[in-house]
């Protein structure tokens, strides 16, 4: 197995090319890292993606606007409602259409619940990467509760296809408000349990504190957004800086980290769960009956032109650019996937750390491969 690589050093000390291949328990799906390793220290890292490139953007150009929503569900398959919302907002901006009040409230409730479910999945798999087998069981139990509620709302556990252009698909089930309030208390207890179990655990702190540190300037230049960026101290949150739907009517605060290391990114997501639960409470109070879909054509045909809208996904700032040529199919759809941009910053974070740290940093970035490769 002849391996040629040109390195700047004399042949006797040669780095080992460790290939954390597409199938690796810690790479959250089909992500491949080639690590240049010197003993246990990582000298350099070359990420390889594209193992899940399904060509969704090409398929979207051949589907009507309603069908494109199903493809958006499958991009970031852990936070489905948020993806649907991103695309639908771009098309509504194109058609300058204002969804009714009740539809906006329901969208925000479902998106925040999806954010909590996504952060719970992150906390579970993050602990699994570090070696603790038990927290993943508890966080998935909470996640099952949220998925049961989603099933009663949209009929599906994951791929909801529920948010439509202009509003939402159908009215909520009538026991939704009562059931959601009960769910919020259970979730608060569930998140507190994970928080108590994991956050200040000695070994967890030793493994994640000071690992994969990045300062705000390089993070912004790498395109890192979401909890990854806020961990290094920047206060950029699309819900606060560029409020959409009804986020300006809710009062919540955005947690900010100090050191920008893996623990901060984890701690931020746990605090965001609490804030999301607070938001859902307020939304449920302000929810009142009303129409859920405006009067519009059954098949949306936006006017010719282009529009760009972006929302706050659990992983970062998802942007959707839609070019329409007046027909019922989009001419071009481009997605700004937050996980794709977060991966650009992976190399700076991992250089100089150990192999075990590379796994921890990749886990803390919380990437979803469906979104990275589109």
């Amino acid at each position: 197995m002849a391996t040629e690589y040109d390195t700047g050093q004399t042949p006797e000390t040669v780095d080992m090319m460790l290939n954390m291949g597409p199938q690796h328990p810690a790479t959250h799906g089909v992500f491949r890292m080639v690590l240049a390793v010197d003993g246990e220290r990582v000298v350099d890292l070359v990420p390889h993606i594209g193992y899940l490139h399904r060509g969704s953007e090409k398929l979207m150009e051949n589907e009507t606007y309603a069908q494109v929503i199903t493809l958006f569900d499958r991009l970031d398959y852990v936070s489905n409602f948020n993806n649907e919302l991103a695309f639908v907002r771009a098309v509504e901006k194109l058609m300058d259409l204002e969804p009714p009040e009740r539809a906006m409230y329901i969208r925000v409730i479902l998106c925040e619940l999806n954010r909590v479910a996504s952060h719970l999945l992150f906390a579970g798999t993050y602990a699994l990467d570090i070696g603790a087998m038990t927290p993943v069981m508890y966080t998935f139990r909470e996640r099952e509760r949220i998925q049961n509620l989603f099933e009663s709302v949209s009929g599906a556990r994951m791929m909801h296809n529920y948010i439509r252009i202009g509003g939402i698909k159908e009215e909520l089930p009538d026991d939704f408000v009562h059931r959601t309030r009960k769910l919020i208390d259970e979730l608060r207890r569930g998140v507190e349990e994970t928080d108590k179990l994991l956050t200040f655990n000695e070994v967890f702190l030793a493994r994640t504190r000071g690992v994969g540190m990045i300062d705000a300037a390089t993070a912004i230049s790498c395109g890192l957004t979401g909890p990854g960026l806020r961990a290094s101290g920047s206060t950029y949150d699309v819900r606060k800086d560029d409020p959409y739907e009804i986020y300006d009517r809710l009062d919540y605060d955005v947690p900010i980290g100090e050191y920008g290391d893996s623990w901060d990114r984890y701690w931020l997501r746990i605090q965001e769960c609490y804030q999301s639960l607070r938001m859902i409470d307020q939304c449920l109070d302000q929810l009142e009956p009303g129409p859920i879909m405006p009067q519009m054509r059954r098949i949306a045909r936006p006017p010719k032109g282009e529009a760009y809208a972006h929302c706050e996904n659990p992983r970062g700032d998802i942007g959707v650019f839609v070019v329409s040529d007046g027909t019922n199919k989009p001419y071009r759809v481009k997605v700004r996937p937050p996980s794709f941009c977060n991966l650009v910053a992976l190399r700076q974070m991992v250089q100089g750390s150990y192999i075990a740290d590379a796994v921890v940093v990749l886990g803390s970035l919380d990437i979803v491969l469906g979104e990275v490769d589109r």
Partner: protein
Amino acid sequence: MTELTAVTFSEVSVIAAALTALLTGLSIIVLSLVWIERKFLGRIQGRVGPTRVGPFGLLQPVADGIKLLFKEDASPAWANKGIFWAAPLLIFIPSFVLWITIPFSNDWVVRNLELGLFYFIAFSVLSIVGLVLAGWASASKYAVLGGLRSAAQLVSYEIPLIMAILVVVMVAGSMNIVAVVSNQESVPYIAIMPLGFALFMLAGIAEVGRTPFDIYFAESEVVGGPFVEYSGAHWAVFFLAEYINTFLIAVMAALLFLGGWSWPFGDLPSLAGLALFMGKTYLVVVFIFWLRGTYPRLRIDQLMSIGWKVLLPLSFANILIAAFQLFYGWPSWTLTLMSLGVLAVPVYFQIRVQRQPAMERARMYAERAIAHRARRPIAETGAVARTVTVKEPSA
């Protein structure tokens, strides 16, 4: 010396029968360990554990065993065939041969050697060779990494383990395990030297590679360590050896520190003694599985620093205080006090850290990690800091 040569045929057959009984007994115990682990971990994680295979999933380990026996024994084309085939035996034989001197009750022992503990220490070190060879022979980078990690970990945790046993020998006055247990008639050694027990347990868990210290079998980093490329019956031998080692550490903990089959209040018939001994052993085994269910994994440099910077000084201190007590002939409760005193030092530091407010403690860990990185930048650690133009390995 003459006694050794004149070994009659009957003696050989007795020993052979005892060994086969031991092997079958061990296999049954390993099956019970596998079952307990899966059920107990299930309970910790809020789920049920195997229930479908036989009543309460009791036949699940049997099903695993059958499947592994009938599995194809694949070995990679570029592996070093000879060593690849021999490595599992090199791990299994020492961990099995150890059981000759380990007594299950006063007279239930295959061969009660005078230097029983010395024999135990000599053979418990051999499994490192098997792991490193397995890692090297299967020619996969992960296996080599796993092998090197296991070598580093086992070597550095062997010393505290041996020193803990040394103190037991000093206090008991003899290396014969049955004698050690009979000395603990009145007071088990855990009461006399709690520090020794703590050291023995920590080093024992690291010896076996169980969760806070399981870096060589870490499936999220090194994908299964030295036995990545083994499959079928060969891999079953590793699986068996790992569980036998866990049981071994539990048995030795029960024998040396928990008093084995001796009951402080009066004498016990040998059967009840055996039951008590088994109870203590399975208690320690459940404690090990409990750790596996709850703790995350340490990184290799943290693991090494605990081994060298914490366990080693404590084991020296342990020997010192035992020497003082024996030399001056003080009563044994003084050794308990001194032992607790030395144990209090690390515990005090830990409590002091724990009592800080949580965010304060998190910040302290961050500062410590930054200092650690500053002290050992990548350039200074022998690898010249350079951006290597990494090309695709052309294979």
